[in-house]
């Protein structure tokens, strides 16, 4: 009984020191998030509003998408539409080639990860430079992010030090984070200054103004869009919100939930292209409009990609981002992966103890754990249910629907207590990995009741 997630988690946990560090570090972020949440008396009301704004927006998405487009175009922005990843990448490339661009400097975008844009453009000869420090580290290592907000959270400073020594020629054995960050600042400053086009993701797209809002701490989205004259925005269809009044709600929730900061250092509102420049927005569907028709999972479209569900998830913290087979890990990733392709990503559904903490931290109140429960119910019809679990569940049903058999079972159970240890704690016993089995009581409650041992004596 194991999934790809189980196996990858085994490997992650085998390095106990690393696992403990990862677990505690992300828990610390969860605690910072808690402190921020407790400092805002109307926190729960904000979460409720955020959920409702998103439910309203996604169920009027055609209206808001058209309103947004109309306003953005009136502001002089060029709006493109991409049905899928291929179209998205082709549009980006067509803009780059029209401007004979060679270097694209980009800020963090999970959507471009989703579209596998970087390999596509690099193949075409474009120099694609990630400018978020964590993303740049991973790009230099040729690895994907392991967390959607803290992409390099699985790495230790020594690994970064070694990488920079090789790629950026920093001092030998110097892995001081300040030193390494300064080195990256220098290196990426040159990239910003020589980029032809800047690209950003989009945290929020405001329908009634046409604004694209991008939040960063490093200021990399702003550097990348204030030097080159061309700005390309890659935007998921579900990023739309109606107006600035709604934006106010999200501006209070996003960073507090994500990193436990009151707000990110920069929250930039792009309304028009720069003087003499161009601004392009690519609105990407890539399966999102299909989710609208899925009652059980529509709420995933409320996600604002804060990563809070990962930081609180006891499984994610102890198994790391790479233990999941979808590029977004943790509770939201389990669900998004299943929506993308259940045949391919069902392995992640085991990575949940149904503790429901993710539901409670989610700033959009997505029913994340309930959805994982529902996916489990569907695995059988997909032919992906674990055979052992199926047999056990069937056996339990048989036992529990036959009270006489159940009572006989209760009577027999204590025999197991006296079975030889090697018979019980063998390789097939997954419970026995790290835990002793419980001892059956000599007499069950049912048996005691039947014999009148429980009831009051005077009755």
């Amino acid at each position: 009984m194991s999934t790809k997630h189980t196996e990858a988690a085994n490997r992650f946990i085998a390095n106990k020191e690393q696992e403990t560090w990862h677990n505690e570090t992300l828990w610390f972020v969860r605690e910072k998030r808690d402190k921020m949440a407790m400092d805002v008396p109307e926190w729960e009301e904000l979460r409720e509003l955020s959920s409702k704004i998103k439910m309203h927006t996604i169920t009027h998405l055609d209206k808001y998408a058209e309103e947004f487009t109309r306003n953005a175009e009136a502001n002089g922005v060029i709006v493109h539409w991409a049905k899928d990843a291929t179209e998205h990448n082709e549009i980006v490339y067509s803009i780059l080639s029209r401007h004979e661009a060679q270097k694209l400097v980009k800020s963090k975008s999970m959507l471009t990860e989703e579209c596998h844009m970087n390999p596509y453009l690099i193949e075409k000869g474009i120099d694609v430079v990630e400018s978020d420090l964590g993303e740049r580290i991973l790009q230099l290592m040729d690895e994907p992010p392991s967390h959607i907000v803290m992409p390099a959270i699985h790495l230790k400073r020594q690994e970064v030090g070694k990488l920079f020594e090789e790629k950026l020629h920093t001092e030998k054995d110097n892995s001081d984070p300040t030193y390494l960050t300064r080195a990256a600042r220098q290196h990426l400053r040159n990239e910003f200054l020589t980029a032809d086009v800047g690209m950003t993701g989009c945290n929020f797209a405001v329908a009634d103004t046409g604004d694209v809002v991008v939040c960063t701490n490093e200021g990399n989205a702003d550097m990348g869009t204030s030097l080159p004259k061309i700005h390309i925005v890659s935007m998921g269809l579900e990023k739309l919100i109606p107006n600035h009044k709604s934006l106010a709600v999200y501006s209070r929730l996003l960073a507090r939930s994500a990193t436990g900061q009151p707000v990110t250092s920069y929250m930039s509102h792009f309304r028009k292209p720069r003087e003499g420049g161009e601004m392009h927005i690519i609105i990407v569907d890539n399966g999102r409009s299909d989710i609208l028709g899925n009652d059980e999972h529509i709420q995933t479209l409320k996600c604002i990609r804060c990563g809070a569900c990962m930081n609180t998830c006891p499984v994610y913290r102890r198994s790391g981002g790479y233990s999941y087979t979808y590029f977004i890990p943790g509770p939201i990733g389990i669900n998004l992966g299943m929506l993308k392709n259940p045949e391919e990503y069902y392995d992640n559904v085991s990575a949940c103890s149904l503790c429901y903490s993710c539901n409670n931290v989610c700033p959009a109140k997505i029913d994340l754990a309930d959805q994982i429960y529902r996916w489990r119910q569907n695995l059988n019809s997909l032919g992906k249910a674990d055979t052992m679990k199926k047999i056990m569940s069937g056996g339990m049903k048989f036992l529990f629907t036959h009270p006489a058999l159940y009572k006989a079972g209760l009577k027999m159970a204590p025999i197991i207590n006296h079975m030889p240890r090697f018979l019980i704690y063998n390789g097939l016993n997954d419970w026995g990995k790290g835990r002793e089995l419980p001892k059956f009581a000599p007499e069950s409650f049912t048996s005691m009741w039947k014999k009148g041992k429980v009831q009051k004596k005077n009755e």
Partner: protein
Amino acid sequence: MSINSKNDILSNVKRHIKVQYDMPDLDIAAIQYPDKLEKFTQMCKAVGGDAMVVKEGEDINALMRSLYPDAKVIASNLPEIDIATVNPDKVEDAHSLNGTDLAIIQGEVGVAENACVWIPQNVKEKVVYFISEYLVILLDKNKIVHNMHEAYDQIKFNDYGFGVFISGPSKTADIEQSLVVGAHGAKGVIVLLR
């Protein structure tokens, strides 16, 4: 390609929407602080920056000099800043602002809950907000609001079509969650209130 995709996407959206949900009432009783100015100052420090109130009659230029004695390239388009060596309205190209030691800019609204200052683009080359090693934001202390709801009710855009909330210096914690100030943008931000 684009027009067809737009129609396809929108018709797929329409086809899939079942129940439509109402927009909630967004007027909420959001947090208010007994002393907005004090909270704003405290939050500026909490996010790694600083805030100070300029004393009556105090010379801003002299104050700047004393705060940043080593700054050589000073960028500002504000008429009262006579120590400026570069005017970001006058530069030919944004790239030439690389190497700016200190930028002095005007903010419009301060937000007590998170130290945000609203900067509607008010220079030709906005890169000056981000590329400078240090940043000083001038702000009218009567323009501090309690929270982001109030801020969004007040902010305005101009013809440049760009605006940013800045809260403290540029920072990152991407290496082992260890906080480092000065990732790509300003290594220090001071809000001067008057």
